[in-house]
Each structure stands twice: as C-alpha cells, then as structure tokens.
C-alpha cells in the first residue's frame, strides 16, 4: 500500500546562508521597529516645522494689524501709550546701521578670506587666523555689544548708529571670512595657473579671475550674514541709544532699530506698544526672509551662468 506522504514545508531559512529562492526578510517585529523609527523621524521634522509655521502665522497676523506704508514711515510716538505713530525711525535705523556694518565687514571679510586661501596656505599664522576666526563666530552678540560700548562709546562719549555698525561688523566679519575662504577654495586651480602663465601677477589673478569665479557664492554668503545682522538686538542695546525721529546720519546722534524697538515694546502693558512690536517684528522677518531668499537665488542663477550655457 502506498501512501503519498507530503513532507511538511521546510521552515523559512533564517541563517545567513538562507536560500536564495526564499530571501531572508526581517521578521515582523524588526520591521515594525524600523517603521516606527521612520515615523519618529518624520515627526521630528514636523516638530521643527510647527514652531516655524506657528511663529510666522502669529507674527504675520498680529503684525498686519498695523502694517502699512504710514506705519513704516511715521515717527515713533513719545509715549508708549499713544496709538499714533509708526516705526519709521526704526526702519531707517535698521537700514542705515546694517548697511554701515556691511560696508565694513564684507570687504574686510573677503580680503581675509583671500588671505587665508590664496596667501596663507598651510602656514602657522594662517592656521592661527582660521582658528581665531572660528572662535570669533562663537562670541555671543551681547559680549560684542559690551565690547564696543566699553571700547568705543565710552571713549568717544556718545552713542551713535556707527557704534552699532561696528558691533555688527565684528559679528559679521568671521562669517564672511569663512564663506569667502570656502568659495575661493572651490575655484579650480587650473584657472589660476592659466592666468599666471600669461604673466599675470598673483594679485591681478585673484582680482580678475579667481574672485569673479567665486563671486556668486561670496555674495550669497554675505547676504546671509547681512540678514543675520539686521535681526540682531543685543549689540545695539547699549551702543546706539534711542531716538524718536528718523536719523539717517550714522555718525551723529543716537539711533534706533527694529530689533531694539521690538525688545523695548514686547513687555509693554500698553496694547498700541505691543502692536507696534508685532508690526516691527513682521517687518523684520520680511526683511530677513527676502535677504535669505535673495541669497539662494544668487546661488542658483549665477552658479549656472559661471559654469557656462550648456
């Protein structure tokens, strides 16, 4: 009597030498853990996006209550309680002080980057400058404000927009140096060789061939530094004083800025002051976002141009 016995199916192989016809798949529990981890990572991103969205939404909502051309151009009221008045002087101050800081920090910073990448190479002094520049990026902005206050304001015995520009420039300088050095490093060495082989001296080669190639990246990085500087409060607190009227003169008289106004009005019990704070905050993030977006655009548009049309 024959009976066909069907042997039980062999168990799914688990050893490393598993059958290639039936590849090892992770067991359910391991797959679950992996899926859970992925969900957590997505949640992490959401956790970052939520504050951003909430902040932008809230500041925009409150800021738009007062935001208008008049708001941006009218003088500050003398009393916090007052409903009239705008933040004109603060807008002027932010612009003037930030521009002043940029004009000092960017040329010096680019030159510093040139020194580090084109002249210093692996020298000890170059390494020292690089190291100290990195340290300088970590200096808290309030310390920079204290520094300029004690070093400059106390000496010239007055608070001016220029003092604020000095403090901001000190904050921007190491950032611009680092960006410039990195962008210069990306310039292919063949370009330098080609220029030098024509009899061009090093400084001319840098000016006419290397810098133009690195320019989009340097501009982009500088724009980001400018955006950061425009939003700074602490360096300006003790250095620029205060004013109710717009002051376009960097070197004479006290000044004010959007960031300082926000700081001063944030705690105010008076609604109009709070509204002004939000209006100023909205203006500030508008400026900062535009500058950041501009930086990205410069990178995208001009990098394509430099690498040729193809």
């Amino acid at each position: 009597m024959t009976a066909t016995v069907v042997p039980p199916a062999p168990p799914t192989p688990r050893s490393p030498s598993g059958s290639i016809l039936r590849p090892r798949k992770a067991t359910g529990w391991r797959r679950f853990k992996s899926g859970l981890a992925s969900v957590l990572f997505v949640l992490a991103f959401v956790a970052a996006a939520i504050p951003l969205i909430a902040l932008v939404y809230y500041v925009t909502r409150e800021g738009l209550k007062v935001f208008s051309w008049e708001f941006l151009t009218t003088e500050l009221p003398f009393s916090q309680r007052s409903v009239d008045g705008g933040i004109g002087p603060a807008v002027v101050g932010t612009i003037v002080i930030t521009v002043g800081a940029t004009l000092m920090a960017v040329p010096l910073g680019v030159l510093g980057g040139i020194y580090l990448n084109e002249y210093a190479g692996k020298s000890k002094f170059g390494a020292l400058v690089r190291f100290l520049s990195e340290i300088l990026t970590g200096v808290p902005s309030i310390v920079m404000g204290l520094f300029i206050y004690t070093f400059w304001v106390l000496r010239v015995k007055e608070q001016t927009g220029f003092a604020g520009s000095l403090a901001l420039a000190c904050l921007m300088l190491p950032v611009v140096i680092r960006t410039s050095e990195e962008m210069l490093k990306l310039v292919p060495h063949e370009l330098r060789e080609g220029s030098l082989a024509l009899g061009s001296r090093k400084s001319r080669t840098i000016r006419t061939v290397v810098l133009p190639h690195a320019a989009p990246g340097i501009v982009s990085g500088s724009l980001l530094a400018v955006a950061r500087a425009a939003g700074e409060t602490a360096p300006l607190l003790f250095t620029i004083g205060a004013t109710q009227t717009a002051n376009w003169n960097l070197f004479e008289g006290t000044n004010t800025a959007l960031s300082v106004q926000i700081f001063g009005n944030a705690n105010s019990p008076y609604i109009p002051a709070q509204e002004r704070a939000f209006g100023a905050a909205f203006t500030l993030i508008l400026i900062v976002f535009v500058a950041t977006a501009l930086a990205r655009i410069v990178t995208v548009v001009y990098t394509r141009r430099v690498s040729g049309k193809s």
Partner: protein
Amino acid sequence: MTQVLDPPASGAAPEPPPPLVGGPRPPGYLADRTFRIVAVLAGVMVLVILALIIWVLFDNSLEWFREEGIGSVFSLDWAPNEGKYGAGALVIMTLMVAVIALLLAVPVSVGIALFINEIAPRRARLPIVFVVDLLAAIPSVVFGLWVLRQLASPLADIYADVHNLVKDVPILGDVFGDPSASGLAIMTAGIVVGIMIMPIVTAITREVFATTPASQKEATLAMGATRWEMIRGAIFPHSRSGVVAAVIIGFGRAVGETIAVALVIGSSQVLTENVFAPGDTLASIIANQFGEASGVQRSALIGFGLVLLAMTIVLGIIARSILRRANRRLGIA
C-alpha cells in the same frame, strides 16, 4: 605652407628678445606687494579684534574682581543693592537653560538629520532644508516676542498640570515645582533656546551622518538589516564623535543666547532647582540690567560677559578638536 599674418621673419634673422634682467621696472610689482600686505592685514584684524575684546572686558571687570575678591566671584548671591555681586547662581541657571535646550533640540535634530538624509525623497530634500534654514534666519527677538505673547500663558497652564502631577514625588516635585503664573520661567527659556539651536545642530549632524561610507551602510543592508538597524549599525557608530561635537556647538550657542531668553525667563536671580520658576542667565541679565547699572554692578556685568566669552571659547576649542580628530580618522583633511 599657409600664410601667417604676422609680418616679420623672412630672410633676416629676427632680433633677440630684450634681456630678462635689467629691463624696465616690471609693471604691477608694487600693486602686487601692496595687495598682499592688505590681505595679510585683514587676517591680522581678526587677531586684533579678539585680543581687544578680551583685554577691554578684562580691564573693565577688575573693579568687580577687587570688590568681590577672586574667591567669591562665583558666590551664589546676586544682590547689587546689598553689595553682593556673585555670578554663581547665574552660571548655574545658564547651564540649566542650556541643558534643557539640548535635551529638546538634540533628539529632534538627529531625527530631522536622519529624515533628510535617509528617508525623504531626493526632490523633497531641498525644500525641507529650506524650511530648517528659515528657522535659523528668524531673529532672536522675534522668537522671544512670539513665545512671550503666544506661548507663555498656555505653558503656564501646562506647568501647573505637570506640577500637580508630580508634586509629591521626591525629586521631581522640586524640579517641576511651583510654576510661575506668567509662564516666564527657566523651562520656557529652555524651550525657546532649544528651538533656536535646532537648525545648527541639525546642519552639523547631517554633515556628520553624510560622511558615513556608503560601503558600511550597504554592508548592513546586504545582511538583511532594516533601515533602522542600518542606522543603528552603520551610521551611529561612525558618527559618534561628530554628534558629540554638534552637541557641544549647540551648547555654546545655547549659553550665549541673550534676547529671547531675556524676554521669557522672568528675571529672577535667586538660584532655584525649580525649572518652572523664573530665573536669569549670564547673557540675559546683562541685557536687562546693564543699561541702568553703574559702578561695581556695571563692572560685574562686564565680568559676566568675560565669563560668557571664556565659556564659549572653551566649548569652541573642545568642539573643534573633537571634529578634527574625527575627520583625521576618516582621512579627511
């Protein structure tokens, strides 16, 4: 032979070129030297600025050192009206805020870094990075304003709930103690700072994770590992020191954060272990009190600035050397 347009040469031998030496002064030599000097000077400026900062701060805090005596410079009492100028309480509370910030920011940053590098589809990467960059671009004062006005009250309620939950538990009851009614507290400051340092910690962590050799990742996957196991098995071990460096850098940022903290921490200089209570940090007390301060108090606040500077310098050096050692092990520069 094609005609060459250049005139000379047929018949007579061409003149020898002028000698290299003794010719007219080469053009551009002076400009080249000058440019080089200017570039070097720009590098020197960094040195000068840092040296000046240290010197000026030190010089102006001598009054404080003399008044307090070097020994009790870090005493726990800050009461200028009573002639007490101790920095101790503020140092500790600064560290508390920083630790809270890191506890919040690091897991989230690591998660985002992994999300961007490993999970998100290529095309989504740029917009996501853009979102994180936007967060980095928002000024500190706007963060402070937002939390102050929108989050402080809800947080106060949350603190109250948590406190009620644990108030009888031995240690927890003290740490999560009686909450400040306004929501202005050490915890609130920690939360703000945590949000603010998240972009930089994410950026560094991403870079570190990205240096994991593809071969290691593929090796684990080829053995049948799940994605999470690959991350744990290949990315994490490789990135250990890099993540430590990122944490230290975030720590440095957290310590220096001034304005947002000043707006939400409640300005109380009494040392407390209760994170729901108001406090103060080295940076925020300078921002809040320096304007009206004079004499020893002013000198003390400048001394606080010096302490802050010292902390950030030390942290910066530590982070840098960790990163350098990690890079050397990988063979990068």
